């Protein structure tokens, strides 16, 4: 290990020092403003959300307008000679403007990623915390549910759901939400389990704190970092899984574009026209990176200074 930096806790004294009343302290910008990752990711995320909202005004073309004679035009950065000014990012296999589809696709991907993550997060966290905290029968019941869920292949559930309900945005969100909660549950269970025996939880119990209050105040902050990691991961998962579902006909209905769907569509020509998969792929990467950094930033804010 180069530098051989001993990494250790600064100890309580440091925290005490930092928390000293400071009449002489200069006025500084609030703490969150100085976290570059946080600001950067928030800005990127805001930009994506804005682009999604303003797609009708930003998009140079109707994202549904096809022109078979102009299909598979390359973007400028790939082949400046064949590219045309009307389609700076090229066109897809039906001659639809790729930039416009990317902008409109942001809407679907954001909606699906966010809400599917929220739904699965709520279910998974609740189950995991209950199982980890109460143990015993509750734990058995939850592991029964988790194992049942894990044993059911997503595709099978999706096929059945689409046959019964048909495909729509709401169905996609719910299907993904009900399918992706397992990681939340598993991680929350073991994290809660670990935290449960700690003295401060016992102490909180001993002084008669109500159980939900203990869970909310003591357990959640302790597992927040794991939670943020899983949440950002699941959001990316939801966005990508939507692509797979779209191909089964469960996803959003065409010609509505989503990034995941665009990635899947580009697969057929990825050996020859790699830019087609790279553009929506990069969009997903940027979105997920922003979500991750935002998660890290928020986490750093919630942990006392000097610790996180």
């Amino acid at each position, binding site marked *: 290990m180069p530098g051989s930096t001993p990494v250790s806790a600064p100890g309580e004294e440091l925290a005490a020092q930092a928390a000293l009343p400071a009449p002489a302290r200069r006025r500084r910008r609030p703490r969150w403003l100085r976290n570059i990752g946080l600001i950067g990711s928030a800005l990127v995320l805001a930009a994506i959300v804005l682009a999604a909202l303003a797609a009708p005004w930003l998009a140079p073309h109707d994202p*549904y*307008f*096809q022109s*078979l*004679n102009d*299909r*598979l035009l390359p973007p400028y950065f790939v082949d400046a000679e064949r590219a045309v000014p009307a389609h700076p990012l090229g066109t897809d*296999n*039906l001659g639809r403007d790729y930039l416009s589809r990317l902008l409109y696709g942001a809407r679907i991907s954001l909606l699906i990623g966010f809400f599917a993550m929220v739904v699965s997060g709520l279910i998974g966290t609740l189950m995991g915390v209950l199982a980890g905290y109460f143990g015993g029968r509750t734990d058995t019941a939850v592991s029964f549910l988790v194992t049942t869920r894990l044993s059911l292949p997503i595709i099978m559930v999706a*096929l059945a759901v*689409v*046959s019964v309900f*048909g*495909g729509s945005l709401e169905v996609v969100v719910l299907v993904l939400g009900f399918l992706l909660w397992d990681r939340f549950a598993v991680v929350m269970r073991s994290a809660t389990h670990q935290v449960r025996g700690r003295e401060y939880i016992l102490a909180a119990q001993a002084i008669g704190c109500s159980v939900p209050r203990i869970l909310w105040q003591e357990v959640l902050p302790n597992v927040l970092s794991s939670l943020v990691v899983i949440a950002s991961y699941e959001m990316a998962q939801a966005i990508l899984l939507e692509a797979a579902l779209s191909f*089964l*006909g469960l996803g959003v*209905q*065409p*010609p509505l574009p989503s990034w995941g769907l665009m990635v899947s*569509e580009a*697969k*057929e*020509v*990825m*050996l*020859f*026209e790699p830019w087609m998969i790279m553009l929506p792929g990069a969009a997903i990467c940027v979105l997920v990176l922003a979500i991750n950094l935002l998660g890290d930033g928020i986490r750093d804010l919630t942990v006392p200074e000097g610790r996180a």
Partner: protein
Amino acid sequence: MRFGTLAAALAATLLATGAARAGPADNSLRWASDSEPANILPYYNNVREGVVLSYLAWDAPIYRDPASGEYRPHLAESFKLIDDTTIELKMRPGVVAHNGETIDANDVAQTVNAMLDPANKVIAFNRISWLKGAEAVDDRTVRLTMAKPFGPWQEYLTTLAILPGDLLKSEGVEALARAPVGTGPYRVAELSPGRQIVLERFDKYFGGAKGAASIDKLVFRRIPERNTQMAELMTGGLDWIWRLQPDQARNLKGRRGIRVVSGETIRIFYIGLDAAGRTGREKNPLTDLRVRRAINHAIDRPGIVRNLVGEGAQVLNTPCHPEQFGCTQEGITKYDYDPAKAKALLAEAGYGDGFDITITAYRERPWVEAIIGNLRAVGIRARLNWVQADTFSGDTRAGKVEMGFGSWGSTSLYDVAAITTYFFGKTPDDQARDDVVAQALHAGDAATDPAKRQELYAPAIRRITEQAFWVPLWTFPLTYAMNEKLDFTPSADEVPRFFNSRWKQ
């Protein structure tokens, strides 16, 4: 300089891998497809690869020459109708199966009767369901009884693969499926579903109409991912792949050592319309002839064919492939691409503002999207209902489909009976339910005189186009990519005949 060396090294590796695995060296052929028959017995699968393998490892009494379209005696020396429902086959003497068993009239009778036995749970029913039974008259003569007078009997006879009767009786169907024995030009040397099926040339093959095979060994691999197939082809791990999309074909074409061939097939694409109003929709636009014609005019078939379907495809105007027996192209109504006319027809029908409709589909999504785009342009707001193939069939039969985008390969049969009667003969799949059409088609099916059949079918075909019951879209070209040293001729029935292929020196 260093990059040059590196590139040279890479090229050398590439070539080395290619040389080590390519087919010409050991006179073998490695081919791959995206699906495979779970059960290799001809009567127990319904995938195209299964048909291909059945041609390689088994034989039928007669063989249809893909070039001339002629029916030639194969396992049988001669074949004839002795009455409306009885076929008599004279079997070729001295044919042996891969296990050495002699194949004669008894095997034909045993095969037919065993496959008709419900206990054997045949899946590819259309190979056999036109027959009622078979009886061996002597060792070389067998009589097949048809369920009813059936015009295209010769065509169907080409798919009646003969299994070794003794083995079938002693081992049972399942054991035979695991250790298959046939009479074909190749014998199954290794059967490992999911991995590979290895066929080796059968040296005692009788030849017949198929002729003697040239390539020693055929290795079939199921590779579901097209990109992987192309990668294997480009590095010499495979010698032959098919079902390439036009964009893939275009890009593969320039590669060294690779030949891309497109071939017409008798598979067609169509949109079925709820002309009889079976969906029960109120104020159903599809029951209006003007709307059906408008839809026909609205779809830019030439444009889609040129840009998306690819080389070898042609615009289709009839509810059958022009190559199929009875599929007249004379006197039919053609609908050219004319959005203005489509709009006018819609306005005339009272749909000046267009209407909403569902289009159900299960394959070729980009094509469907292109069609939806065309329909939008004339005001028809089509919503895609993407389903599985079985749901598509089921829903169509249940009369739940408004517009159904489908494809039909007529099980490679060159006869209108395998397609038009299926869709317009008052069958559950018949969305038009037109008595005139259905009667004409059934009469044509039952007749056995070819000229008479032609005459009976023609008015039905004309009426279907005139009434615009369907939107015939285009024919489907198959695109193959292969090692350029392979001598391979595609055939329109979607059955690559590797027993006629060889390696060029």
